[in-house]
């Protein structure tokens, strides 16, 4: 029957065409080149971290000849957006680096694999219980913390010394910090610091110094528009005085150390997390040192030890075992630990921390020493931020842009932010 044949032909041609269309967007974990398993591993960071990661991955590939790890990395902002798109499209990489802010959303959205399923290849016995629990949502271990980090004031040692302003001590309050930045700006002719007004992290430290928090236990907003107005009034004034970076420079921040004023050589200090601060070493060869974050006026510390970042495995990976092996390698392998150093924070594996700690070199040693100096002095970390925080981090920076370009008063911008935040946290 010619009629039928045509129909059948039609259907098969249609099926073929559809296959061709779908083949273009194959899922993750397909095998390629010589029958090897290909694992996609993505992370954010800087060239320093990239170099060490590549070395560690090469070692992993040597130990697992049947696995080929394809890595990719970018700056934090770009990474965050790309990963969200991939995850939404069901195309999340097999192994992905995650931030504290992403865990909740990704876990509840079904993107991440329950790592208990891969217990046999992924050891967690040597990780501090409390720290390990930060990767858990609803009692399921979705991610493993990779390191411990804390915020710090990184500074250009030579410029600071030459200015004649006394070097920072073991602690300072926000008003002492502000006076120091003013003095630095006056002596060096460039702003003392990156304008901290744009940073939700710096705001959190300031807020905690007053015994408050970004979020309440129930995941609501832990501060009022009045709190934020005070913070932005404080930073706005410093900016107008030239003590912190001007709007034109602040707006270029994208989460990479290269685009901070300190990284560009246009300021003396930068508040940052301690692990990425190692990226400054390559940018400021004359020396970088770390000082603690300012505390509240009564000496209450605002900074805290935070899991610096996590590793998670995609729920849709075709090779859960190999992916878990890679995670295990990055966290528990002593050789990998030697290569990685403190580039992702001080290692979480206690044996490794004890073993490699004294052997850390160069800036890794600086970071370890800095953390040791804070040990026992800090308050407990806050619980993991609610899902909406992921978007609010950008909103915070953007709303502050309106202040630093003098388009809104600190009060107007703060009220805007609180309105937006409340809407974001409700949905």
């Amino acid at each position: 029957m010619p009629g039928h044949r045509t129909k059948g032909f039609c259907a098969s041609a249609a099926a073929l065409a559809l296959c061709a269309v779908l083949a273009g967007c194959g899922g993750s974990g397909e095998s390629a080149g010589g029958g090897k398993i290909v694992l996609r591993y993505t992370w954010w960071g800087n060239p320093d971290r990239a170099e060490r990661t590549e070395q560690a991955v090469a070692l992993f590939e040597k130990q697992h000849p049947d696995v080929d790890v394809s890595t990719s990395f970018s700056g934090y902002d770009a990474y965050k957006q790309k990963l969200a798109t991939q995850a939404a499209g069901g195309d999340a990489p097999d192994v992905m680096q995650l931030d504290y802010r992403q865990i909740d959303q990704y876990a509840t959205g079904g993107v991440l694999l329950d790592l208990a399923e891969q217990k046999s290849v992924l050891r967690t016995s040597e990780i501090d219980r409390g720290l390990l629990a930060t990767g858990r949502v609803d009692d399921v271990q979705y991610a493993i913390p990779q390191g411990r980090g804390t915020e710090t004031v990184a500074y250009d040692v030579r410029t600071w010394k030459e200015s004649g302003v006394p070097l920072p001590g073991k602690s300072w309050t926000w008003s002492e910090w502000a006076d120091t930045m003013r003095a630095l700006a006056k002596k060096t002719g460039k702003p003392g610091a990156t304008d901290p007004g744009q940073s939700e992290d710096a705001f959190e430290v300031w807020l905690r110094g007053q015994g408050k928090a970004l979020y309440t236990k129930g995941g609501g907003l832990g501060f009022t528009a009045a709190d934020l107005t005070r913070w932005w009034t404080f930073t706005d004034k410093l900016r107008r005085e030239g003590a912190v970076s001007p709007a034109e420079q602040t707006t270029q921040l994208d989460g990479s150390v290269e685009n901070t004023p300190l990284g560009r050589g246009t300021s003396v200090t930068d508040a940052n997390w301690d692990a990425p601060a190692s990226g400054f070493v390559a940018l400021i060869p004359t020396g970088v040192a770390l000082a603690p974050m300012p505390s509240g006026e009564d000496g209450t510390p605002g900074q805290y030890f935070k899991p610096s970042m996590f590793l998670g495995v995609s729920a849709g990976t075709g090779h859960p075992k190999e992916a878990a092996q890679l995670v295990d390698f990055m966290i528990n392998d002593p050789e990998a630990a030697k290569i990685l150093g403190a580039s992702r924070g001080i290692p979480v594996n206690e044996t490794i921390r004890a073993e490699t700690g004294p052997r850390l070199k160069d800036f890794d040693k600086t970071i370890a020493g800095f953390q040791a100096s804070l040990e026992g002095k800090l308050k407990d970390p806050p619980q993991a931020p609610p899902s909406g925080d992921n978007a609010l981090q950008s909103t915070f920076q953007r709303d502050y842009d309106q202040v630093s370009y003098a388009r809104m008063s600190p009060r107007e911008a703060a009220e805007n932010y609180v309105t937006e935040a409340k809407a974001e946290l409700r949905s």
Partner: protein
Amino acid sequence: MTTTAIPPEARHAPAAASKRRPKREREGAAWVFLSPWVLGAIVLTLLPMAVSLYLSFTDYDLFNPPKWVGLRNYVQMFTEDPRYWRSVVTTLTYVVIAVPLQLALALVVALALKGMKRGKGFYRSAFYAPSLLGASMSIALVWRAVFNDGGTVDNLLGTGGWVNRPGWALLAVALLTVWQFGAPMVIFLAGLQQIPAELYEAAAVDGAGKWRQFLSVTVPMLSPVLFFNLVLQTIQAFQVFTPAFAVSAGKGGPADSTLVYTMYLYDRGFVASHMGYASAMAWVLLLVIGIVTAVLFRTSRSWVFYASEGDR
């Protein structure tokens, strides 16, 4: 369509029974050959459009199943979101700056190239090249570097970095588009060459100078092409994304000054994970572009001149 597609010999086929079969077989074959494109249209265009329309009535965070919220996204957009309106104003400003500038530049260059005797090919390619390159991310990044503080423009004009100034950043973005005037230029050039030389000769005999000739011969004769370019470039300008995205490093900054409509749409969808809201924005954009195009067509009746009209 079916009747015109039948070749004459089929129409004259003798028996009714044999007349049908070949037609159906031909249709079948046609569908087989068309299937990749039909499927493409359905899978890659119609289906996503339908899904997006559905999503625009939902709350969808990309990770959890969409929740039906009716018209809430649309209501929120129009009544509770100042940033939405900021993006609308930014986009309109951009369209008003970029489109006339680009068309004017395209026309001027086309006129200059038309009369050129030697090196025509070279100049045409040279002016068209930015249109091929300009859409790429790399050029947009170069643009950012040029207009950044400490960049070329800063050094030459001492105006500081444009991309870091709320008042100037949008202009830097518009200039990137204006610079890509190659496509309308080529169309203008083709249009100019269609104008009969006799008209200019006749005008010259009547004592018309170059300027008069331009106004009385070139402009009316070129008006259909001008209209075509205007519609096309306006539609494109409303959808501007890449230059704004690259020049502001994906943020629409400084201080939301380059937050064009599609950037905000992207921000809502992929940064804030509000896909439902982003979808609603997309549909409003489609509607607005439709309306603007319709209005342009309306006004065209009064200023576009088709040579064939004279015959009627």
